[in-house]
Structure formats: structure tokens, C-alpha cells
């Protein structure tokens, strides 16, 4: 079910059972029908048993025997088949309901007020949506099927027993009440003992932990005996509680067994007596015994179901309580209408904002802004400038006064109208995982999705996107991302040819000066900025088995390095890399992409290698098993001394690897000439990035001046070959990493700015949005705002650095929740009041 525009209201008020009612009723009906049939097929075998014993065996009729046995088999098989159908239907209904619940719950959570998110932990939300709701799904699936099946079965069997012989039926039923009293009582005691066992276990664990943490005290006080005694007492306690608990557990099993077997005992006794006296036939006795045994299962299933429903009730209740809350603002307008287009005027009259605790963040703020005006909000930290900006963007709920956008009261506006007209850039913008392009288009796509636009409708052109990234200063970054992309073999043939031409042009014009900044793919030199694998196999692989990532598993290669005497050294290098990486990162909680820049170990492999390092301490290098050796080899082959500074490349290994390169070329040429194509100036190297192909080498410096110089030349060459836009497109596909952690802080901020610029909102709110940027970028963005936005869009900027506000139409100075001064920059400086003090650090008076 697609939720579309139907975001649920007051979801937390729904009861657990209501989900059963909204589940697939058609399937539930089919389920009921199947259940009734199944129950019938369960009773049938009983009657058949009676007939087999009495008629077929008793009257010695062989053909009847065969017939009744066949029917019996048929009935039993049918019953199993139908049970399968029931289970499938149950699961389907339950999971469908669960999917529905998950979607509605998520939709509800997203609209919760900001105050909820300040206290909530993402972990709790994740577990609520994924694991905690699971037993609700289980319950919904079983809610009708299980009670109905088992109750009907019990009734049917009980009915049949009465039909056979009322006296015996009553006797066998009489046993149940006793079991129902005894067993739960034992269960209660067992649960108590279990709880005690868990508590003692926990106490013991804490005690051990404490002692180990304070081991230096134990050693210096030589309190070994004391600690051992303390520990011994606890261990003995644990020993005792476990025994008690187990005794209760076995007692329950024995009781269950006893009552189960008591039935047949009584039946044989009474039934046998009646049969001997001719009041009861054997067939009926057999049927009776059979039915009696089968009575147990429905009971057990009902008990289990009760447990499931209790668990579901508790989990569900907990979740709904946690997410109790209504959205602070209407999401969509009440009546179905098109969005409002605001003119950009903002009017704040006497607005107060009080938070729980009685603290007033805004104390009667008034401000009028005309369409297209640019206003700067300044003041010390805590003055309320961010708070005011968030009030105007409908994030904060003000408690008194009036704030309007084009005469529409903000509190009454729908979020959709605000989102259509207002663009906000936060001080710490959030960048979602995915491509850079997805992030740049996030705001636009949000509105497109809400309005149901499909295809390319409403999307900005590539030119517009390029303009936006140039305006915020992200262009060279995007270019770099694009140049760092690789082409897959077979794709983009024409682009490949262009790159080769650029390579030649570049070398002709710049070859001389490149020597210091580029490490060329020179056959006779060891390349510090390429991996060991790339150094050994000095070419691109034509067979998958020879790709750098696959070499560690390639038999030919493994034999080669063994013969070339490289294997041991590579394993040692790999071990060293693993050891140092694990040593540095083992205590770092939650390392992100930045922490893995300098190591060949990948983030997802880290725990693997941590374990491997522990093993390495115990095992000698030549005794390693193949799998561990393979892992070490992977690291050694990835090792790039220019990038991975944690281990140095010894002269010895360097020389051997260089020799190895020659040997490998020879060997491959003889044995598998088609497997690898060695680097040649005329060829495109598919395993290398575009920039590496252009330079026919790797950049070996970080110096920004040098990089700038390279960029400029490459840009002009790309333009010559009409390739610039293709590279930018590639750059836009760059994966920014989870939460954008592959972007630097400045890049993230520029992305957020470009994201909002692309939307061209009528009102633009920047909350210290350029704080993380260098001066040049800040100035550039300031210029864009003044040249392109003045008069067209209203700008409200919360500003910390005061050298950027001279061009604004109005400056409002805030202190302790009030606006203390407002006017143009020059006016206020002349007044020598608060603004003067902020700018010059002291009062002019």
C-alpha cells in the first residue's frame, strides 16, 4: 500500500487489535473456511480408527481394512496439507499487516515535533521500527487463526468423545483442572528461580568487571584471598540457584508427562472394565485413546498464543507510548488547493518564545522585512538570533505574538506552503548518503514527490546545476570527483579516445613542469603512489582473475610470488599493516571514512582483521592457514607507500618488487600472454582513474598551488575536447558516504547552500551557513547573494563574522532575546551603540 499523501493522524491511539481488523479480511475469511475443513479432517481419522478396529479387524474383513486405512491416510495427509495452507495464510496476513504498521509508524515518526527528536535516540527509533514491532505482526497473523482453530478442534474432539461414551468423556476431562492448577504453580516458582539466577549472574559479572578494573589495588594490597572469598561466595550462590531452577524445570516436565500419561491410564482402567463387561467396544476405546492424546496439542497452542499476545501487547504498548505526539504544524492545508506563492515580506510583531522551564528565548521581538530585502541578524551567542530565524522558518513554535509571511500567520501555515516558499540552510547541514546529485536535488525532489511529479518534470537542467555549484565554489571539487572516476571497459569508447588525445596534448605542453608533481607510469621505477599489486602487474588485466582485487586468490599469481621469493615478505608487510591499523583504531568508537584514508584495511573489514591480529600473536608466519594468509596478502597487495603512511616500504622489498615486475612480465608473456596488457602510452588504462590516464601517472603532492595549476590546464584541455560537461556529470555521481562523511565540512556546507540555491526560494534563511568556509568562499557567496538575489528573494542571514554584513539592507542586533538596534550598517556604526561594540570590541562612547 502506498501511503502517498495519507500520513496517519494520531497513530499512537490505535489499539493492537485494530490492526487485526484492518488486515486483509478477504484472506482472513478464506482462512476461517480452511480452518473449519481442517478441523473436520482431524476428527475423521478418529472415527476411522474405531471402524478399522471394530469392523475391519473385528469382522476380519480385509477389503474394509484396506479401504478404511486408505481413507485414514487420505484424511491425515489432507489435514497436514491444510495446516500448511493455514500457516502460509497466517504468515502472509501477519507480514502484510506488519509492513503496513511499519510504513504508518515511520510516516508518523517523521512528523513528530522537534522537541521529541532532541531527546530521542536514533537507536531506539531503529529498534522500534525493525525488531520491536515484529511480534505485533506475528500476533495479527495468529489473532484469528490460532484461537479459532484450537477452540474448534477442542470442541470437535470433546463432542466426539461425548458421542462415544459420556461417562468416559467426563472422567478424561476431569483430569484437566488439576493439571491447570499444578503446572502453572510450578511454572511460577521456576520463573522466580530463573529471575534469581539472572540477577545473581549479573551481580557476578559486575563483580568480576570491577575487580579487573581495579586490579592494581588488588595487587598493591595483595588482597587475593579476600577477592577469592568474595567471588567464591557468589559462585556458590549461582551454583545453588541453578540447581533449584533446574529442579523446578524438570519437575514441570515430569508433571506434564505424568498428567499426559494419567489420561491413558484412567481410560484403560475404566474403558477396559467397561469393555470386559460388554458395555464398550474396542474400536471406541482405540478412538478414545487417540482423541485423548490429541487433545493436548490444541491446549498447548492456545497457551503459546496467549504468550504471543501478551508479548505483543507489551511491545506494542511501549512503542505507542514512546511515539505519542502530534505534529506541531499542519503538514498540508486543510482544503485541497494549490500552494500559496508568497511575495517575500516577513513581519514579526512582539513575538515571545518560551521553552519548558520558563526560560524565554525571545522576549518581544518585532521586525518588518520587505520583499527582496537582505537582513543580517547579529549578536553574541545566546542572543536569540538563531531562534528567531527558526521561528520564521516554522521550525520553532513561538508562544506569543504574531509572525507572518505575506500576512499569513506562520503558526497556521501548512508545512507544504512553507517548504514551497522558504529555503533554509542550517549551520550544521545534514547530507544524506547517496550521490552528490541526489543531495543537490533533495529539496527539489521533496516538493516534486509531494506534488506527485514524475519523470523529469520540475528537475533543473545540467547547466543550472553547474551554475549552482560554481556559485557556491563546489565546481573544482566536482571536477576532481569526476576525474577520479574510472570507466568500465567497453563503455564510453569515444570518451576514451578523447582522453588519450588530452594525454598527448598535456604532455606536449606541460611535460617538463610535471616532473615534480606527477609520478609517471615508468616501467623502470618503483611507483610509490600505486599499490603493490599495480607495481607487480604493470598493466591492465584482461582476465578477471588478474584484477588487483582478485590476485590474492589467483593460483597462478600465488605460485609466481612463491617462486619469486616474494611471498614471505608480502605476508610480513600485510601483517605489519594489519597490526598497526588495529593498534591505532581498536579503541576508536564508531570510526568513519576519514579514519580509513591511511590504511589499506576497509571499514567493513576491520573487525575481521582485529581478530586476525590476535591470532597472529600466537601463530608463526609460516604456519598460517590459507585463509589468513590470503587476508594478509590482500593488505600487502593494496599497500601504497605514498598514501599509507603507517608502514614504510623497505629498500629490500622495493628492489625485489621491481625485479618481480620484470619476472612477471616474462612469465605472463610465456604462459598467459592474453591475460594482461602492459601499460603503453597509446592505450587507455581501464583500471586507473581518468586523471591518472590523462597524466599517465599519479599526482604525488598535496600542495594546493600545484593542484590548482594542474586543474586549470586540464579544464582548458577538457573544454577543447568538449568533455567538461561529461566529467562534471560523472563528478555529480560521486558517492558522498554515509551521512556525507566522505565530504569535508566545507564541502558539506557548500552542498547544502547549492541545494537551497537550486530551489530559488522566495525567502532564504541562512543560519551561520558559511561559518565553516574559508574567506574566499565566504566572499564569493556574499557576492552571489548581493548580485543575483537582491530584490528577487528576501534574505535573512544569521551572521557571526561581522565583516560580511556591510552590503545588507538592514542589520538587526540582538541581545538576550531582544532586538536592541536595527537599521543600515552605516547608520548603526555612526550611532556607536551595540553594533559598534561588536565590531570594534569595545564601546565607542
Amino acid at each position, binding site marked *: 500500500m502506498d501511503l502517498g499523501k495519507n500520513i496517519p493522524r494520531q497513530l499512537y491511539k490505535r489499539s493492537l487489535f485494530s490492526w487485526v481488523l484492518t488486515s486483509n479480511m478477504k484472506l482472513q475469511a478464506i482462512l476461517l473456511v480452511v480452518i473449519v475443513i481442517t478441523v473436520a479432517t482431524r476428527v475423521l481419522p478418529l472415527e476411522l480408527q474405531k471402524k478399522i478396529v471394530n469392523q475391519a479387524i473385528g469382522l476380519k474383513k480385509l477389503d474394509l481394512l484396506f479401504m478404511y486405512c486408505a481413507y485414514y491416510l487420505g484424511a491425515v495427509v489432507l489435514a497436514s496439507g491444510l495446516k500448511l495452507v493455514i500457516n502460509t495464510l497466517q504468515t502472509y496476513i501477519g507480514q502484510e499487516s506488519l509492513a503496513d504498521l511499519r510504513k504508518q509508524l515511520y510516516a508518523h515518526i517523521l512528523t513528530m515535533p522537534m522537541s521529541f527528536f532532541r531527546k530521542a535516540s536514533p537507536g531506539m527509533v531503529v529498534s522500534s521500527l525493525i525488531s520491536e514491532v515484529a511480534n505485533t505482526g506475528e500476533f495479527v497473523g495468529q489473532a484469528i487463526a490460532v484461537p479459532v482453530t484450537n477452540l474448534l478442534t477442542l470442541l470437535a474432539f470433546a463432542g466426539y468423545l461425548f458421542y462415544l461414551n459420556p461417562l468416559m468423556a467426563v472422567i478424561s476431562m476431569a483430569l484437566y483442572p488439576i493439571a491447570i492448577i499444578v503446572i502453572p504453580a510450578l511454572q511460577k516458582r521456576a520463573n522466580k528461580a530463573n529471575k534469581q539466577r539472572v540477577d545473581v549472574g549479573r551481580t557476578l559479572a559486575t563483580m568480576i568487571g570491577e575487580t579487573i578494573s581495579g586490579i592494581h589495588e588488588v595487587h598493591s594490597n595483595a588482597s587475593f584471598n579476600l577477592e577469592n572469598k568474595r567471588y567464591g561466595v557468589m559462585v556458590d550462590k549461582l551454583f545453588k540457584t541453578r540447581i533449584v531452577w533446574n529442579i523446578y524445570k524438570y519437575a514441570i516436565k515430569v508433571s506434564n508427562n505424568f498428567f499426559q500419561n494419567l489420561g491413558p491410564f484412567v481410560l484403560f482402567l475404566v474403558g477396559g472394565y467397561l469393555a470386559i463387561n460388554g458395555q464398550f467396544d474396542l474400536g471406541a476405546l482405540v478412538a478414545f485413546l487417540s482423541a485423548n492424546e490429541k487433545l493436548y496439542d490444541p491446549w498447548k497452542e492456545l497457551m503459546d498464543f496467549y504468550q504471543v499476545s501478551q508479548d505483543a501487547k507489551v511491545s506494542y504498548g511501549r512503542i505507542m507510548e514512546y511515539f505519542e505526539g502530534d505534529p506541531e504544524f499542519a503538514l498540508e492545508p486543510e482544503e485541497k488547493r494549490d500552494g500559496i506563492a508568497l511575495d517575500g515580506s516577513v513581519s514579526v510583531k512582539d513575538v515571545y518564545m518560551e521553552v519548558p522551564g520558563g526560560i524565554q528565548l525571545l522576549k518581544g521581538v518585532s521586525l518588518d522585512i520587505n520583499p527582496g530585502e537582505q537582513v543580517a541578524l547579529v549578536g553574541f551567542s545566546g542572543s536569540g538570533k538563531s531562534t528567531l530565524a527558526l521561528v520564521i522558518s516554522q521550525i520553532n513554535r513561538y508562544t506569543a505574538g504574531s509572525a507572518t509571511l505575506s500576512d499569513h500567520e506562520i503558526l497556521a501555515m501548512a508545512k507544504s506552503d512553507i517548504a514551497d516558499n522558504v529555503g533554509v540552510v542550517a549551520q550544521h547541514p545534514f547530507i544524506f548518503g547517496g550521490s552528490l546529485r541526489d543531495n543537490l536535488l533533495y529539496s527539489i525532489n521533496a516538493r516534486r514527490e509531494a506534488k506527485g511529479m514524475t519523470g523529469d518534470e520540475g528537475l533543473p537542467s545540467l547547466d543550472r546545476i553547474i551554475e549552482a555549484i560554481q556559485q557556491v565554489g563546489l565546481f573544482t571539487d566536482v571536477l576532481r570527483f569526476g576525474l577520479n572516476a574510472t570507466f568500465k571497459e567497453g563503455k564510453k569508447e569515444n570518451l576514451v579516445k578523447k582522453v588519450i588525445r588530452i594525454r598527448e596534448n598535456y604532455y606536449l605542453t606541460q611535460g617538463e613542469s610535471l616532473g615534480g608533481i606527477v609520478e609517471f607510469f615508468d616501467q623502470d621505477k618503483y611507483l*610509490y603512489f600505486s599499490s603493490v599489486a599495480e607495481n607487480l602487474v604493470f598493466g591492465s588485466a584482461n582476465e578477471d582473475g588478474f584484477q588487483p582485487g582478485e590476485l590474492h586468490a589467483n593460483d597462478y599469481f600465488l605460485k609466481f610470488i612463491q617462486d619469486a621469493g616474494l611471498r614471505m615478505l608480502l605476508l610480513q608487510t600485510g601483517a605489519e599493516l594489519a597490526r598497526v591499523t588495529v593498534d591505532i583504531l581498536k579503541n576508536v568508537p564508531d570510526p568513519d571514512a576519514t579514519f580509513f584514508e591511511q590504511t589499506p584495511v576497509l571499514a567493513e573489514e576491520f573487525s575481521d582483521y582485529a581478530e586476525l591480529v590476535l591470532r597472529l600473536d600466537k601463530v608463526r608466519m609460516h604456519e598460517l592457514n590459507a585463509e589468513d594468509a590470503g587476508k594478509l596478502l590482500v593488505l600487502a597487495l593494496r599497500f601504497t607507500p605514498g598514501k599509507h603512511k603507517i608502514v614504510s616500504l623497505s629498500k629490500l622489498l622495493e628492489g625485489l618488487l621491481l625485479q618481480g615486475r620484470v619476472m612477471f612480465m616474462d612469465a605472463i608473456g610465456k604462459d598467459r600472454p592474453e591475460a594482461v596488457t602492459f601499460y603503453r602510452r597509446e592505450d587507455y588504462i581501464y583500471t586507473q582513474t581518468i586523471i591518472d590516464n590523462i597524466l599517465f601517472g599519479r599526482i604525488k603532492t598535496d600542495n594546493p598551488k600545484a593542484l590548482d595549476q594542474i586543474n586549470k590546464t586540464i579544464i582548458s584541455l577538457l573544454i577543447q575536447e568538449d568533455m567538461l560537461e561529461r566529467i562534471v556529470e560523472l563528478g555529480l555521481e560521486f558517492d558522498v558516504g554515509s551521512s556525507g562523511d566522505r565530504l569535508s565540512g566545507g564541502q558539506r556546507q557548500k552542498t547544502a547552500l547549492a541545494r537551497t540555491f537550486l530551489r530559488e526560494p522566495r525567502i532564504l534563511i541562512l543560519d551561520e551557513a558559511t561559518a*565553516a568556509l574559508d574567506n574566499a568562499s565566504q566572499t564569493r557567496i556574499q557576492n552571489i547573494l548581493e548580485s543575483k538575489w537582491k530584490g528577487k528573494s528576501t534574505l535573512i542571514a544569521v551572521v557571526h563574522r561581522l565583516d560580511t554584513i556591510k552590503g545588507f539592507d538592514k542589520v538587526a542586533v540582538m541581545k538576550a532575546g531582544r532586538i536592541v538596534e536595527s537599521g543600515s550598517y552605516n547608520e548603526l556604526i555612526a550611532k556607536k551603540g551595540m553594533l559598534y561594540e561588536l565590531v570594534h570590541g569595545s564601546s565607542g562612547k
Partner: protein
Amino acid sequence: MSSSTDQAENSQSCAFSNNLDILRELPFFTGIPLDVMKVMAYLSSTESFAAGDLICAQSENLDSCYFVKCGEIEIVRDIQGEEIPIGRHGEGFFFGGLALLSPSAPLFTVRAATDVECLTLSREKFSKTLERFPEILPKILQSVVSHIFKWEEKYLQKNGKTCAANGSMELGLSLF
């Protein structure tokens, strides 16, 4: 003196252990446990500057700290358009520690007088470390505070009487 990064790769000890040795000696990082020092050494990098290159500019956002590994740097202050040289420093000089703690516009311009190679750690990477090991912040603040006190003590000993005679309250940095 080689300014390229070739020397770092060719030397037997790797850049990481060199960085670690340097960081452990810095007064700015006194008291920080070895584990965390290793992480910071790991996240540091080496930057080279040609003679005359700008390392940091007065009033321009500085976002890293620098340690001079070899070469000489000069410090100047722009006073009303004129560049007044303040001093020159060579190997072993560390600056920019405060930039790690907060975005700041430095009061001086620092330039490479000769070809210079520096160890550098960016604020962004330092913040990521700090986020994960918040217990080091009190130690760093302690270093900064004790540095302020030492500085003012020295200043008072040299100029205490003359400043008091002038009447203006320029002293009292450590009273903040």
C-alpha cells in the same frame, strides 16, 4: 634539504611514527594518553611549502595547526597596511594549536622563508578525534590555561612596573 615527499617514503621509519614522536613532545598536547596521540598522529599529514609561499594569512580563517619539520618560517603582522616582521623560526616551531579548538582569524601572517616542510593536523580531523575521546579536552584546556599564565607572568616580570605606571589596564589576560 628535500622538500618533496620522497624522503618520507624512503626513510626506514615511516611517517606515522615520525608524526607520533613529534606530537608527543609538543607542550600543547601534554597529558594526552598514548592511544589518542596515535590516532592524531595517524590523522596528521605532511605539507610542503616553497620559499615565499603563504602558510597562514592574518584575518583569514586558519583551520590547522603546523609544526615545522625543516626549513624556516617568518611571522609578520600587518599594522595599518605595513608589514612589520615579528620573528623567524626554524625546525621545531609549532603554531596554530588554538585554531584546532575554535575557528579563528589569526593575528599574524606566517610565510615560508625557505623551502619548508610541516606536519599539519586539520581542525576537522582533530574534532573527529575529540568527539570520540572527549576526555582529552580538559587536558588541552589545561595546557592552554597554563600557557596563558606563564606568558602573563613573564610579561609582568619584564613590563609590570611600566604598564602600571601608564595607567591603562592592558594587563589581566589571565584574569579572564
